[in-house]
Every structure is written in structure tokens, then in C-alpha cells.
């Protein structure tokens, strides 16, 4: 009979209306600023540089400026300049370091390929998403100082992955030391060959609510524009106040 389909439809919406009051599974919305979004461990948004030490982030960057990520980055948003001198890394080995390391986050598409190709576990994916800026050139270009985050932060946002990476790194370090002792040869400058990260099957936990983004939203706004001699600082337009 005419109208039966309409009545059926009305019944379904009525059921949903009532259900929205007592069936939380029906409501998928989150009241955002009050109710923080639970980000899964694997969530990725914009890379950052891992440094071993929080007190001296620039001195203990894992990055050795090998420029693989710069080459592999699909939208080519990474800018690296090698240093002229060498500094000792965490193992005490003398390594190059990035004199300039910049990521243009207005171009970056968070694809994680830089993380996958990095042989030194030096660049990892961040979890920031509350990013707003007033200058679309300067504020969205992150320089070395803004990118460097301590390993503890890495542990905070990706606990399982970070533990796994740390374990691998200490094992490598131990192996390198033993190798160094055994051979007792001249100090090898060859970098530690880390296995490919893709092989290391990282086991995520999707449903684990343990991941708390208690890190305060990182502001991408640089306090002083053009600081740190960023390449865009000179060429870019003057910051409008």
C-alpha cells in the first residue's frame, strides 16, 4: 500500500532518535576541545628529528645528514645542508651533522617515507595536529631547532615503536663495541648499518587507550621570524604583523 515504505523509514529514524540517547555506539561524534581525541599509536602527522638528550638537543641529534630522506621525499619538502665539521654521536663516533635541516610543513604530506628510508632512526613521525599559523611561509617552515625533540618525547607518543627502536639501537651499539674491541683496529668511521625499518614488523595496538596525547599542542609559530638562518627567511616575504 502507498505509504508503507515511508512509515518504515519514519520508524527507522525514530529508532535512531531514541537510540541516540541511550546507545553510545550510535553516537560517533566527539566533543572536541573538551573531549580529547584518542589518537592511535600509529597516528602520524609531520616528521620530527630525534635527539638523544633533552638538555642538548642540537648536540645529540641522531641525524648524520646523509640526505637520503631529502632525496626520497615525494613532495621534496626536506632541506638539508651538511656540516663542514664532525661531532661525536651517541656512540662516540665522529659524524657529520645537519647544519641546516628544514621541513616545509605546508608541502609535507605526512607520508612517512622519510621515516621508512632513514637508516639511523633519526627522523620519526610526530602526532601534532593542532597546528595553526598566521604566516603561511615562515610559520609553516620548521627549522632544525623546532624539529628536534628528545627521545623521551618519542617514547611518549609512540611507546612500543620507540622501545623497539631503542632495543635495536643498543644491540647495534653493543655489537659495534664488541666488534671494535675484537678487531682493535683503527677507529672505523663506517656508519652502523641498521636493518631496514620495514622489515622490523612493528606491532601496533589499535585499541590500546594507553596513548595519551598529553603533550601540549606544539605551536608551529616560530617565536622570532627568520631565526636560525632558514633559507626561506631571507627570500620569503616579510612577516606581516
Amino acid at each position, binding site marked *: 500500500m*502507498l*505509504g*508503507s*515504505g*515511508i512509515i*518504515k*523509514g519514519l*520508524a*527507522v*529514524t525514530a*529508532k*535512531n532518535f531514541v537510540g541516540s540517547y541511550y546507545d553510545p555506539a*550510535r553516537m*560517533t561524534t566527539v566533543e572536541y576541545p573538551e573531549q580529547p581525541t584518542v589518537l*592511535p*599509536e*600509529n*597516528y*602520524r602527522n609531520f616528521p620530527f628529528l630525534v635527539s638523544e638528550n633533552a638538555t642538548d638537543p642540537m648536540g645529540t641529534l641522531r641525524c648524520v645528514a646523509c640526505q*637520503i630522506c631529502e632525496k*626520497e*621525499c*615525494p613532495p621534496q619538502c626536506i632541506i638539508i645542508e651538511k656540516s663542514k665539521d664532525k661531532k661525536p654521536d651517541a656512540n662516540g663516533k665522529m659524524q657529520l651533522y645537519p647544519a641546516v635541516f628544514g621541513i616545509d610543513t605546508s608541502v609535507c*604530506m*605526512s*607520508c*612517512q*617515507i622519510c621515516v*621508512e*628510508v632513514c637508516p639511523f632512526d633519526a627522523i620519526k*613521525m610526530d602526532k601534532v595536529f593542532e597546528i595553526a599559523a598566521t604566516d603561511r611561509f615562515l610559520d609553516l617552515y620548521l627549522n632544525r631547532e623546532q624539529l628536534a625533540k628528545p627521545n623521551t618525547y618519542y617514547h611518549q607518543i609512540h611507546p612500543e615503536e620507540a622501545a623497539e627502536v631503542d632495543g635495536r639501537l643498543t644491540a647495534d651499539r653493543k655489537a659495534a663495541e664488541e666488534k671494535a674491541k675484537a678487531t682493535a683496529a683503527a677507529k672505523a668511521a663506517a656508519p652502523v648499518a641498521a636493518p*631496514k625499518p*620495514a*622489515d622490523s*614488523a*612493528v*606491532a*601496533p*595496538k*589499535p*585499541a*590500546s587507550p594507553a596513548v595519551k596525547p598529553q603533550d601540549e599542542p606544539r605551536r608551529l609559530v616560530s617565536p622570532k621570524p627568520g631565526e636560525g638562518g632558514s633559507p626561506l627567511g631571507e627570500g620569503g616575504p616579510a612577516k606581516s604583523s
Partner: protein
Amino acid sequence: MSTSQVSGFNTQVSAPGPFGGPAGPTVRAVHDQFHGDLLEVSMGPQHPSTHGVFRMVVTLDGEQIVKLKPVFGYLHRNHEKIAENTSYLGSMPYTDRLDYLCSMSTNWAYALAVEKLDGQPVPDRAQYLRIIMAELTRLLNHSCLVGFLFNDLGTSFTPLLYAFREREKILDLFESLSGSRMMCNYQRFGGCRVDPSPEWLEAARRLAENYPRFLDEYEAMLTGNEIMLARTQGIGRLNSTHAINAGLTGPVLRASGVDYDVRKIDGYGVYPRFDFRVPLGAHGDTYDRYMMRILEMRESVKILSQAFRDLPAGPIMDPKAKLRGFRPKAGEAYGRIESPKGELGFYLISDGSPNPYRYRVRPPSLINLTLLEEMCLGHTVADAVVILGSIDIVLGEVDR
């Protein structure tokens, strides 16, 4: 007064504009000796129901369409040329942005082409994972489609939001697995990027198990609705000859009654191990196209339950697969899959360098769009948006 405002319209044909075109007024009548007075309306690129920056130049006789010209290219991003200047791996995240609703299947199509090019084997577990992702994507895409279709039909967002409620659950799964909701970037040449945990698999299995309940509710709400039947049945008919000649694929083709499903024909991946059916329409109208989606979702649920049952243990990545410095041997390959929208293919020529020599996408959205005018002629404006909705296009893929 030089304008003659004798009739309802500002039928101004005074002096032509500075560049020879008609001057001024926005409402301009087109005269045609066969149809009387026609009205040319440019729907889009900013229009609520053109599903992105798509434009239709419709010529109307009253409300009836006598001519329809699809115009696209507003979202052209030069994807194919960029890919020829990027490494093979570097194109993978770009493929996410082709059909941004189904990045998982697009990834797979590209990975399939590259694997064919290089003769790269894929471990079993990865094959199963790929099928799980592809079918979840099909659920996601078709849910979206039926939701948007009803919005085009004039509901006040209710079915769309019900569909989005389910889509949200799948997107959450994707996010917890790959780190991003829509731009998954999950497949790699020779396997997948992340191995799902048992908890993830359990959550996904439960989702697939509960999906028919949502479909039942959804169908109860609107499939039998008299207005819905009257608005979709017999609208936008497409006969099978036309559809085949124009190279249409996917649910749009199957709604016209042609049995063509790349999953069955190519049997790529491990699809031959699965037991599923391909629904076929009989009328080729909007209602059939809608029902194809609903029935395919039900089949996808079946595939998913089999995949979760049979998922083998093992590596997810071929150990010989190279991530850095990947250089396939010279040659060419065409990899195609049954994406939710139709046959999605990637054609690659390699000259042995790290970048593809030629990179070409066969986008189902674009090719399915070619018969839009055919389907819309003689129907009204209101039907045109519904027909467009039932074709299921994503402008990211149409314009590339």
C-alpha cells in the same frame, strides 16, 4: 531602453560585449528552433552536489535536459607527469590522493603494476591483508556513495550521516593501522607496511560481522520508500551495448547487466581462493546502480569473513623487496584491480632507472563519466544530479 524586457527574462541581446561574447546579464536564453527557448545553466564547479569541482553545462528546456556537457580538469594536479619524475616508492603516497576515498585499493593497484614490472613475489599474509583492506575500502566507498546519493535525492543528511557513522569505524581502523585515516599509504612493493595486531584483526572482524545489521537498517529506511523508487527507477537508463562501447566498468557496468568483475576475470591477488558472487542488474537505471552497491557490500562482508578465517601467519613483506634504491628492470606492465568504482589500472614503462619512464592511470571515475550526457538526456535537472551521484565519481581521480 536598449534591452527588451518584454518577457520574463532579461533577454538582452543588445550590443555584444567587448570580446564578442554576449554582454552582461546572467540569465540568458538560448534560442533553438526545435525546442523553443532553452536555458543554459552552468552547474558547478561550485555546486553542492557535483561531488567536488566538477562542472556540468546543462541546457534546459523547462526542467528537461536537452544537452549536457561535462567539464572537468579543475582539480588537475599533474599526477602522471610528477610520477615520472619521482621514484617508484615516492609515487605511492600520491596514489592515495587519486581516489581519496579508497586509498587502500589505489595503493594496491599501483603496487600490483610495479610488482608485475619487477616480478616481485608477495607473501601470502600480505595478499590476505590486501584483500581485507580492499574489501574494507569497498564497504567504505559504497557506504559513502549510497549516503551521498540520498543527499542528492534530497534527504536532509540523515542517510548520509548513518553511512558516515559506519564509514567512521572503518576509517578508525585504517588510522590505527596505517597512521592516517584516508591517506593510508599502506601497500609496498612486495607486501604491506604494517602488520596488524590480533586486536586490530578482531576489531575488524567484528566490524564486518556487524555490517549487515547496518545495511539492513539502511535498506529498511529507504530502499522500499515510494519516493525513492519513483525517483530512481527508470531514471538514467544505460543499455549494455552503450556501456561496453564506452568502456565503463565497475558497478555502473554491472548494473546494465554485463558480467565483468576484474576480481573474477583476472583473479589477481588470492581472490580465486574466495567464494563470492557478482550481482548483476537488469535495467541499468539509477536504482540498479544503487542496489549494485548494496549487494556488493553484502558480498564484501562475505569475503571479509573468509579472509579473517583463513588469514595465514608469516611475513608481510617479501625479504628480497627493496625499499631504497629500487630500480625495476626495463619493461612495461599494466596492473589492474577492481576498485570500488571500477577497473583501476596503472600502466608503467621502466627504462631501468629509479623513476618510471611512462606512468599512466586508467581512472574508472573518468571513464564512467563519459556517458553522463547519454544517461541524463530527457530527464530533469533533479535527475541529473542523482545520475551523477549514482555513477560515483571522485574528482581526484577524474582530473588526476
